[in-house]
């Protein structure tokens, strides 16, 4: 098993009102929680001595444009004690703000900057929320599903005289 069954029971019991959904697809435990309580849950698990989920492996986001709550921010935690992983997800509408995780981990600084740059999710309380990967004067948020790939159609001899078409 690559997730901890006792941790599952513990979190189910302690945060029952805050959890919206739970899934164990392919041996991985995923919780979908309310956006206002995520930082408290992470802080509790960081300080908890029993399971020690105190290592932030990854902080990223997914975009589901057909849903009302299109942004889904994903936190992936790891415990050195029993080598298991735990995933938390938060769903946000467009324009909603989320509290920053830099109060707990330093690595969240650059990871949240990347999520802001590529998806447009705003983190409240972040010390330096600026673009990190795209140029500073870039407009738009590239990894959103409705931002086009900007694929240039290659020019062959039949269309070499026109400027390249972009889709």
């Amino acid at each position: 098993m690559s997730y901890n069954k006792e941790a599952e029971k513990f979190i189910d019991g302690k945060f029952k009102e805050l959890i919206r959904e739970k899934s164990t697809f392919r041996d991985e435990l995923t919780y979908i929680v309310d956006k206002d309580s995520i930082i408290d849950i992470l802080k509790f698990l960081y300080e908890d001595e029993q399971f020690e989920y105190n290592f932030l492996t990854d902080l990223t986001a997914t975009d589901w444009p057909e849903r009302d709550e299109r942004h889904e921010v994903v936190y992936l935690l790891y415990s050195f004690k029993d080598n298991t992983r735990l995933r938390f997800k938060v769903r946000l509408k467009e324009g909603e703000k989320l509290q920053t995780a830099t109060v707990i981990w330093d690595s969240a600084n650059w990871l949240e900057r990347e999520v802001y740059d590529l998806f447009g999710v705003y983190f409240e309380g972040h010390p330096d929320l600026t673009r990190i990967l795209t140029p500073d004067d870039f407009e738009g948020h590239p990894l959103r599903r409705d931002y086009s790939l900007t694929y240039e159609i290659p020019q062959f001899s039949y269309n070499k005289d026109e400027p390249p078409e972009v889709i």
Partner: protein
Amino acid sequence: MGLEDKIPDGIILTTLEKMVNWSRKSSMWPFGFGLACCAIEMMSTFMAHFDLARFGMEVMRPSPRQADLMIVSGRVSNKMAPVVKRLYEQMPNPKWVISMGACASTGGVFNNYAILQGVDRIIPVDMYIPGCPPRPQQLIDGIVKLHEKVKHEKLKQPVEKGKKK
């Protein structure tokens, strides 16, 4: 030594053009401009196995003001494009540019919002070397062909660099 055997009188007859071109091609100093994966193959070409110093490129200068040949090796992103242009303009004439790899020549595997589709959109290129990444032997072939091209350059008209479509 060899030169004294060939010309016992000490006089050679040649044109200034040939003399200048021969000296330019024999000691072209490359500019260390490695961007991505092709840079590793460029570094391998400079190292002991496929030695590039035997073609006169002994010294790899990190500063553009002391280099002749800029090998753009790797993908040029839109954020890096102004930097490439500025470095190119800092190089003194005569200068040559080799675009190494598929990404530098035409955008390569990546056809999206972030990569410039070919470095020849911002600077004039003399030699294109395809490959992903090109083998060191391919790079050496490209450099030897560039030397051939330099050998036939004319001295009369000024070399028009920097004026491209």
